[in-house]
């Protein structure tokens, strides 16, 4: 479509309706993009939040090489050959990341590591990995976000800050929308926030509970005991910083609602106790089903990390931290997860896809990944500290803006993307498919002996 702009220049404009923003786990799929096809930029992102707008509007096609080895420009095939060679020669390679790419590309990753006998890990391990482990231990009553919109009359956020991390979560799914059995929106819901900080999120609360830092588990445990008929102890205030009456009132509200939901964030998974904190919360939600319908859900973050979880699970049986060095998938968080393998100086090659450990990881891990003991390969859409430190660096196009594909919303609902404009860079899918083929060829040539029996 061509339209006249203000100064009467004709610009070549395209409208993309119902586009999906992949910045946070909300995956809002109702965004209307206006694209300037000449300049290759998105000029408007109607209905997107502040994060979404900055995601769409800041995307420009940069003038930079597709592939580099040690900073020198090379062809894509040369870079892929070099990457495949490094991975096959390595004795303990790891593949990490995958949160900012589509499922179709993620699907290529586990087979690559299967062929070269490495470890595959996703950003889940430093996000809601502990919740995943807790899920394996206690299970979880859960739901899709539409159920919250339609039914929930009790909504709780625990240890998260959706106002800043998932800005449209309130309006689209959980607090204000008018649903089937919640025709009056927020008036039909009680919103409770539990956090140690008075964040922006606390502003929407009907009830804000400021917890003593690090006492999430204790409060959850008291509520669980309350489900079994144990009284809230009198020294409740000393234990968790909340008055006994407040906790009792909270418990009554949880018990007496019709459809209750708890969203929880990394305040639980990242603090002391980790998987036991989120496990206690899931167990509490399970216990509450004795009285009413109650569900819980981790408010998962970045892009398509939920998709990575799903893909790795269906291909290997385990959600993250999966090792193939003995010819079949093995799972043990803490042993095969990226932070550990790097901090313990074990990995001798690292393929980082669409994520940035050099900026976000703990210092000991960064020290190893940037050392010459570990050959670093990066596939990313943007320049990051990781791509700059990498031996082989490949630039790809951006999902959801330049390429289509599937992403999973935080509640495991898959959504197809509608790209806005094309990019001169290859897609992750294209690069990884080529790499998978190359690694497979090399592995057939290497002909390593395959194990056939269980060793332990």
């Amino acid at each position: 479509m061509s339209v006249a702009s203000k100064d009467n220049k004709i610009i070549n404009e395209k409208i993309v309706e119902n586009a999906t923003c992949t910045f946070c786990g909300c995956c809002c799929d109702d965004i209307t993009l206006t694209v300037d096809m000449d300049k290759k930029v998105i000029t408007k992102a109607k209905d997107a939040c502040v994060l979404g707008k900055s995601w769409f509007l800041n995307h420009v096609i940069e003038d930079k090489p597709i592939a580099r080895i040690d900073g020198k420009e090379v062809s894509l095939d040369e870079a892929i050959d070099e990457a495949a060679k490094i991975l096959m020669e390595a004795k303990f390679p790891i593949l990490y990341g995958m949160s900012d790419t589509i499922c179709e590309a993620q699907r290529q990753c586990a087979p690559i590591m299967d062929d070269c006998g490495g470890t595959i890990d996703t950003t889940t391990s430093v996000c809601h990995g502990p919740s995943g482990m807790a899920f394996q231990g206690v299970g979880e009553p859960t739901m899709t976000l539409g159920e919250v919109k339609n039914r929930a009359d009790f909504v709780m956020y625990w240890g998260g800050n959706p106002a800043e991390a998932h800005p449209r979560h309130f309006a689209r799914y959980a607090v204000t929308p008018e649903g089937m059995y919640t025709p009056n929106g927020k008036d039909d819901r009680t919103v409770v926030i539990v956090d140690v900080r008075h964040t922006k999120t606390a502003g929407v609360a009907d009830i804000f509970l400021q917890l003593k830092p690090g006492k999430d588990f204790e409060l959850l445990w008291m509520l669980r005991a309350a489900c079994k008929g144990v009284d809230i102890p009198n020294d409740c205030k000393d234990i968790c910083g909340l008055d006994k009456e407040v906790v009792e009132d909270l418990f009554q509200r949880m018990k007496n609602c019709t459809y209750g939901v708890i969203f929880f964030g990394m305040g639980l998974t990242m603090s002391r106790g980790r998987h036991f904190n989120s496990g206690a919360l899931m167990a509490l939600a399970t216990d509450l089903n004795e009285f009413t319908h109650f569900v819980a859900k981790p408010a998962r973050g970045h892009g398509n990390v939920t998709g990575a979880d799903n893909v790795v699970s269906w291909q290997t049986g385990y959600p993250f931290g999966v090792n193939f060095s003995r010819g079949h998938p093995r799972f043990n968080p803490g042993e095969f997860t990226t932070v550990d393998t790097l901090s313990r100086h074990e990995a001798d090659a690292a393929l980082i896809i669409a994520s940035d450990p050099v900026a976000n990881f703990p210092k000991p891990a960064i020290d190893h990944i940037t050392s010459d003991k570990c050959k670093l390969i990066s596939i990313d859409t943007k320049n990051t500290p990781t791509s700059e430190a990498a031996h082989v660096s490949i630039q790809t196009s951006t999902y959801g803006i330049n390429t289509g594909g599937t992403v999973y919303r935080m509640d495991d609902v898959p959504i197809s993307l509608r790209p806005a404009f094309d990019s001169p860079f290859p897609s992750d899918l294209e690069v990884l498919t080529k790499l998978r083929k190359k690694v497979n060829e090399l592995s057939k040539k290497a002909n390593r002996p395959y194990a056939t029996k269980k060793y332990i």
Partner: protein
Amino acid sequence: MKGQLILLPGRSAKQGVGLNKGKLKEEYIRVTTTLEVSFEDAAELGLETADIVKISNHIGETEVQVKVLREGKLPVGYAFIPYGPPSSNLFDGETCGTGMPASKGMTIDVEFIKKGVKKKTALPPKTAIG
């Protein structure tokens, strides 16, 4: 002036916006080097908004700029910083058998270095408003 606080790194919208512009760009760097402390602690430590402080623990150290919060926003004794390279400098690689480094609630030393210039507030880009 030196004291101890417990650090609670986390996400913020500004950090998310900065991330999209590019991790090597100014805005992201500015956001991720801002340490939020409570009103009470600032008084105790004699800190004011825009002061440059060194924060450190047994893993590493980094220099950040202070932002003093209004009363009641943060519990006393705690400090907040958005995730980013500076906060990474203080994380331990220990994951307690979970794969997740303890990136909330580590004790840090805070030491005053010098007075700083007040930063411009990192507003979202113009085009993004409305």
